[in-house]
C-alpha cells in the first residue's frame, strides 16, 4: 500500500499532513507513506515516518496541466492520495470533478456546497451560522453591520486568514491587506461568537460516513489554534444528520466542522474544511484513528485497531533531524532596513488561490441565490439628500465647501421631536437634547430650539451661543469638565440641569450654587462607564470611588432635583452593547438612589448615535427603554435623550472638485481633489457616501468601490480622503464630488490648514 499525503506545514498554524502520516503509520505499519509538498521550506518533510517525499515546485511555478497528469498517473498506479490542504483539495477536485477511486478527497460539487461562510450543506445539523455579509456591500452597509454586531466582527479571506476589526480604520486596513494577499476583493465580514471552540472530524468514502469524533479545545495558541484538546464521541443528535449530509455530498476523504459553543450551549458553525484537521493524531491517541479508517474504507484492507492512550492530548515542540537529501534552504535576507524575513506562504498557496478563482470564480459561499447582484459597493443615498442638492446652484459653489441639507435637517429634527412626544407619558416626559459641539451651526441650533430640544452644552461659550440663538437658560443643560470656561459667562438665570463631571467639580458646583453664582432646576452627576474606557464622569470602578460618589451625592443641594447623566458613543461600541450599557447604568442608578437616599428625577443619556441606528431604529427599543426606566427608577420624571451626531451628521455634505487624475498601472488611479482631511477629519472613522456630479447632465452618480484613491490637496502623506473608490466613467478634472454625511464632527472639528 502506498499513500501520498500533502499538507506537511508544521508552524504555528499547522496543516494535518504529519498527523495523518503518524496515524497511518500506526494503522498500517508497513504502508509506504509519501509526503507531498510544494516547498522544501516546510519542516514536516523531515518527519521520520515518511518513507519518501514528492517535492513539487511552488504553486506559482507549477505547470498545473503537467502536474495534474502526474497526479493522475500516481492514482492510476494504485496509490492513495490524502490531501492536507484546502486549496490543493480544491484544485484536485477541479482535475477530478467526479473523484477518482484512489483520491481520498471530496468531489467538486461537495466543495461548492461547503463554501464558507454560508456552508450551504450544514442544514439539518444542530448548528447556526454566525451572521455575515459579503464585503461586496457598500462601505455604508459594512459599517452598519459592524455597529450592529458591536464591532466584534472578523474580516475573513476566502480560504484562510481572518482579522479582528474593532474599528473602521482597522477594517479598511485589513481589507486592503487581505485583498492584496488573496488577489480578491470578495471577502466577508462575520460576527464573532464568544464561547468555547470545538470540532467534529469525520472520515467518509463515497458518501458513507466511516467515523467521526468530537474534540474540544483545551488550550490554544496566540492565533487561537488548537494546542491541546479532549476527545470524545459525537452526540447522536449531531451524528445522524451528519451521516445524511455526507451521503448527500457523496463525500470522500477527511473533513472537519469547526464550531463555537456559546455560553448558552448553542453551537455555531464557522466552517467545514475538506480535509482532516491538524489535531487528527490527537484523536488517534484517544483511540479514533480516522485516517486509517478512511484507508480501510477505500481499500478494504484492515487497519491495526487504534488503542486509546488517553482521552486528552497536547502538543509539544520537537526538534527533528533534517533529511540530508533536503538540506535547509537559505533564509531570505530581510528587505533592506526592514524587520523580519517576509517569507509567508513559501509554497505559493496565494498564487494557487489566484489561479483558482480566476478560473472558477470567487470561492465564497454566501447563501442560496448567490451572488448578490445588487451588491456593487455603491451606497444608496437618501432621497432628501438628492432633493437638497438639487435645490442648490452647484456650479457656482466655491470648493471645498460644506453644503447644508435644509430639508434633510428639518426632517431629522421633526422626527426626533415626534418620537419624543410619542414616548412621553403622564409619568415620564421624554425630550431630546442637541449636543452643540457636534455642529454649532446656527441653523441646526435653531432647528433644535424649534423642535423642543434642550441645548446640551459643554462650555459656557456653547451655552452663550445657544442663548444667543434663542434658547432660554432653563432650556440649557450644562455638562462636562469644561463647564467653567470661559470665566464670567455663567448664565444668571436658572438652567435646566447641571451635571458634575467629578467629585471636585461637584464640590465646586455646590459652592457656586450656595454662593448664588449658579442655578439649575436639576443638579446631578455624570457617571463613568465602568467597563468601557472613558475619561468622563465620576468613576465607578472600585468600591472606594463608588463610596465617594455616594458621599458626594449627599452633598448636593436639596432644593434642586437630582439627575444622572451618562454618555457613550454607540457608533464606537455598537448598538447592542450600548443598550446593555444603558441597562447597566440604570442598575447603577438604582444603587445610587438606594444608598444615597436621593431620588433620581432626571435621566440624561447619550449619545454618539450613528444616524441610521437612531432614526431607523424604531423597533420598539426606545419604548422598552422608557418602560425599563419607569420600572427601575420610578422617581424619574424626565428623560433627556441626546442623539449626538445622529442629528448633525446627515445635515451637511462637503463639496470638492477634482484637480487632477493620475492613471497608474493595473487600473490604479490617484485623483487629487481640492478638499482634504482638514475639512473631513472623520475620514478614517466612518464611511462617507460620495456622489459625483456629471458635468454635462448635472446628474448625481454614487461612487462605488474600485482602485482609485482620492488624495487631498495638502502636502501631507496621510491626506487621503477616500481609498478604493471607483470614479464613474468620464470623470474629469474639474468635476465635483460631494462627500455626504459630513455634518457632524467633520464639520465641527474641521480646521484651517494649507490655505496660506
Amino acid at each position: 500500500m502506498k499513500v501520498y499525503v500533502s499538507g506537511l506545514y508544521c508552524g504555528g498554524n499547522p496543516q494535518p499532513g504529519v498527523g495523518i502520516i503518524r496515524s497511518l503509520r500506526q494503522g498500517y505499519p508497513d504502508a509506504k507513506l509519501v509526503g507531498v509538498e510544494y516547498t522544501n521550506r516546510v519542516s514536516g518533510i523531515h518527519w521520520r515516518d515518511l518513507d519518501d517525499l514528492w517535492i513539487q515546485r511552488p504553486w506559482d511555478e507549477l505547470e498545473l496541466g503537467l502536474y495534474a497528469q502526474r497526479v493522475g498517473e500516481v492514482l492510476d498506479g494504485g496509490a492513495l492520495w490524502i490531501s492536507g490542504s484546502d486549496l490543493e483539495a480544491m484544485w484536485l477536485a477541479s482535475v477530478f470533478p467526479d473523484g477518482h477511486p484512489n483520491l481520498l478527497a471530496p468531489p467538486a460539487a461537495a466543495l461548492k456546497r461547503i463554501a464558507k461562510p454560508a456552508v450551504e450543506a450544514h442544514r439539518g445539523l444542530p448548528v447556526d451560522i454566525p451572521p455575515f455579509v459579503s464585503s461586496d456591500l457598500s462601505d455604508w452597509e459594512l459599517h452598519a453591520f459592524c455597529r450592529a454586531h458591536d464591532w466584534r466582527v472578523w474580516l475573513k479571506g476566502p480560504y484562510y486568514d481572518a482579522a479582528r476589526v474593532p474599528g473602521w480604520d482597522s477594517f479598511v486596513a485589513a481589507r486592503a491587506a487581505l485583498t492584496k494577499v488573496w488577489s480578491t476583493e470578495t471577502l466577508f465580514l462575520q460576527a464573532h461568537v464568544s464561547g468555547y471552540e470545538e470540532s467534529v472530524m469525520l472520515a467518509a468514502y463515497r458518501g458513507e460516513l466511516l467515523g467521526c469524533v468530537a474534540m474540544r479545545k483545551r488550550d490554544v495558541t496566540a492565533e487561537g489554534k488548537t494546542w491541546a484538546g479532549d476527545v470524545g464521541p459525537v452526540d447522536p443528535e449531531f451524528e445522524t444528520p451528519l451521516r445524511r449530509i455526507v451521503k448527500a455530498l457523496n463525500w470522500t476523504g477527511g473533513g472537519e466542522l469547526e464550531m463555537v459553543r456559546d455560553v448558552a450551549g448553542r453551537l455555531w458553525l464557522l466552517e467545514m474544511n475538506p480535509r482532516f484537521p491538524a489535531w487528527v493524531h490527537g484523536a488517534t491517541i484517544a483511540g479514533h484513528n480516522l485516517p486509517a479508517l478512511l484507508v480501510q474504507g477505500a481499500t478494504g484492507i484492515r487497519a491495526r485497531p487504534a488503542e486509546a492512550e488517553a482521552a486528552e492530548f497536547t502538543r509539544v515542540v520537537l526538534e527533528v533531524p533534517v533529511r540530508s537529501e533536503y538540506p535547509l534552504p537559505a533564509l531570505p535576507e530581510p528587505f533592506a532596513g526592514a524587520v523580519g524575513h517576509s517569507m509567508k506562504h513559501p509554497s505559493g498557496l496565494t498564487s494557487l488561490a489566484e489561479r483558482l478563482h480566476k478560473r472558477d470564480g470567487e470561492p465564497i459561499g454566501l447563501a442560496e441565490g448567490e451572488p448578490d447582484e445588487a451588491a456593487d459597493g455603491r451606497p444608496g443615498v437618501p432621497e432628501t439628500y438628492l432633493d437638497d442638492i438639487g435645490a442648490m446652484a452647484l456650479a457656482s459653489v466655491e470648493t471645498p465647501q460644506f453644503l447644508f441639507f435644509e430639508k434633510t435637517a428639518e426632517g431629522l429634527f421633526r422626527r426626533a421631536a415626534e418620537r419624543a412626544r410619542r414616548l412621553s407619558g403622564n409619568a415620564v416626559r421624554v425630550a431630546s437634547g442637541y449636543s452643540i459641539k457636534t455642529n454649532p451651526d446656527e441653523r441646526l441650533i435653531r432647528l433644535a430650539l424649534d423642535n423642543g430640544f434642550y441645548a446640551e452644552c459643554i462650555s459656557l461659550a456653547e451655552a452663550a451661543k445657544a442663548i444667543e440663538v434663542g434658547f432660554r437658560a432653563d432650556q440649557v443643560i450644562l455638562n462636562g469638565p469644561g463647564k467653567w470656561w470661559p470665566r464670567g459667562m455663567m448664565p444668571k438665570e436658572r438652567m435646566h440641569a447641571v451635571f458634575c463631571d467629578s467629585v471636585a467639580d461637584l464640590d465646586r458646583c455646590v459652592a457656586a450654587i450656595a454662593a448664588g453664582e449658579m442655578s439649575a432646576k436639576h443638579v446631578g452627576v455624570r457617571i463613568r462607564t465602568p467597563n468601557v474606557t472613558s475619561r468622563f464622569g465620576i468613576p465607578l470602578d472600585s468600591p472606594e470611588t463608588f463610596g465617594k460618589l455616594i458621599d458626594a451625592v449627599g452633598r448636593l443641594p436639596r432644593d434642586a432635583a437630582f439627575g444622572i447623566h451618562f454618555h457613550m458613543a454607540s457608533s464606537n461600541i455598537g448598538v447592542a452593547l450600548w443598550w446593555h450599557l444603558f441597562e447597566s447604568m440604570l442598575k447603577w442608578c438604582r444603587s445610587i438612589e438606594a444608598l444615597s437616599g436621593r431620588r433620581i428625577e432626571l435621566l440624561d443619556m447619550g449619545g454618539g448615535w450613528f444616524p441610521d441606528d437612531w432614526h431607523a431604529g424604531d423597533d420598539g427599543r426606545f419604548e422598552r427603554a422608557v418602560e425599563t426606566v419607569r420600572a427601575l427608577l420610578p422617581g424619574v420624571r424626565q428623560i433627556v435623550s441626546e442623539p449626538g451626531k445622529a442629528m448633525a451628521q446627515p445635515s451637511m455634505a462637503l463639496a470638492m472638485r477634482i484637480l487632477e487624475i493620475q492613471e497608474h498601472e493595473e487600473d490604479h488611479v490617484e485623483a487629487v481633489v481640492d478638499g482634504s482631511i482638514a475639512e473631513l477629519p472623520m475620514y478614517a472613522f466612518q464611511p462617507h457616501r460620495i456622489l459625483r456630479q456629471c458635468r454635462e447632465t448635472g446628474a448625481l452618480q454614487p461612487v462605488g468601490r474600485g482602485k482609485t484613491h482620492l488624495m487631498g490637496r495638502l502636502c501631507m502623506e496621510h491626506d487621503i480622503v477616500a481609498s478604493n473608490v471607483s470614479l464613474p466613467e468620464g470623470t474629469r478634472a474639474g468635476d465635483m464630488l460631494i462627500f455626504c454625511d459630513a455634518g457632524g464632527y467633520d464639520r465641527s472639528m474641521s480646521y484651517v490648514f494649507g490655505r496660506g
Partner: protein
Amino acid sequence: MYLAEAEARIDVRPESLGRSPLPGDRWREFPPSALSHHGEACCEIARHWVIAMDFAQLNGAEPTSGPRWLRQKYKWGPSPWPMHWCEAVKRKTIDCGAHAALALEAFRARGLTAFPAQLVQRYSEAATEQWRGKWDRENVSCHWLDGEHIYHEATALLVGEDEVRIWDSSAGSWVCPRQDGGYGSLAAVRICTEGRDGDGDGLRWGERRLKPGEWVRI
C-alpha cells in the same frame, strides 16, 4: 458562621478512623463560606457595587457567563476570616471562600439560581506544602489543606431543569466534569442547596448526578 466555629466542625484526626471513605471526610461538616454584613452603609455599598459591576461586566453576554472579572480584580490567596463585605471588596487578594461568595451573589443578582459548591481536589504534597507556607506567613488558617488533598469552594449554577455547572471563581473557569483523576482534579463535591432537595436523581453535572447536600466522590 465564623471560621472558629466552622473549624470546630473539621475532623482533625480523620486518620484515626482508618482509611477515609471519602476524600472530603475531613471537611464533611464544614459549611460553605459566607461574607458577614456590618448592617451598615459600608457593607451595603460594597454589596451594591459588586452587583452593579457584575452586570456592567457582562457586556451584553449571556447571563450564565461566568463572572470572570472577579478573578481579574481579586487575586486568589490567603485572606483572614471572618470577612465582611466591606473588607472583601477592598482586598487585593481573597481566598476561594470569598471568591465563591462573591460569585454566588453575582449569579443570584442576575436572577439565576446558584448554590454554594464545596470541592475536594487532588494536588500534591509539594503543592500543599507551598500553600501551607504561604498561608502561615499571612497567619491565616490552613484548615483547607490535608496531605495531597485540598478543600476548595466554588459556585454551582443551575442551567436547566436539573443541570448544574460549577464555576470556580478563584480560577476563573468552569470545573470540567469529565476529568476524574490526576493533579488538580476533583476528588469529591457537594452542592449546598439550602433546603432544595432536587428530585430523586439529584442534580446533573456532566454525566454525573449529584445528590444535593451530600458529598459525592468523583
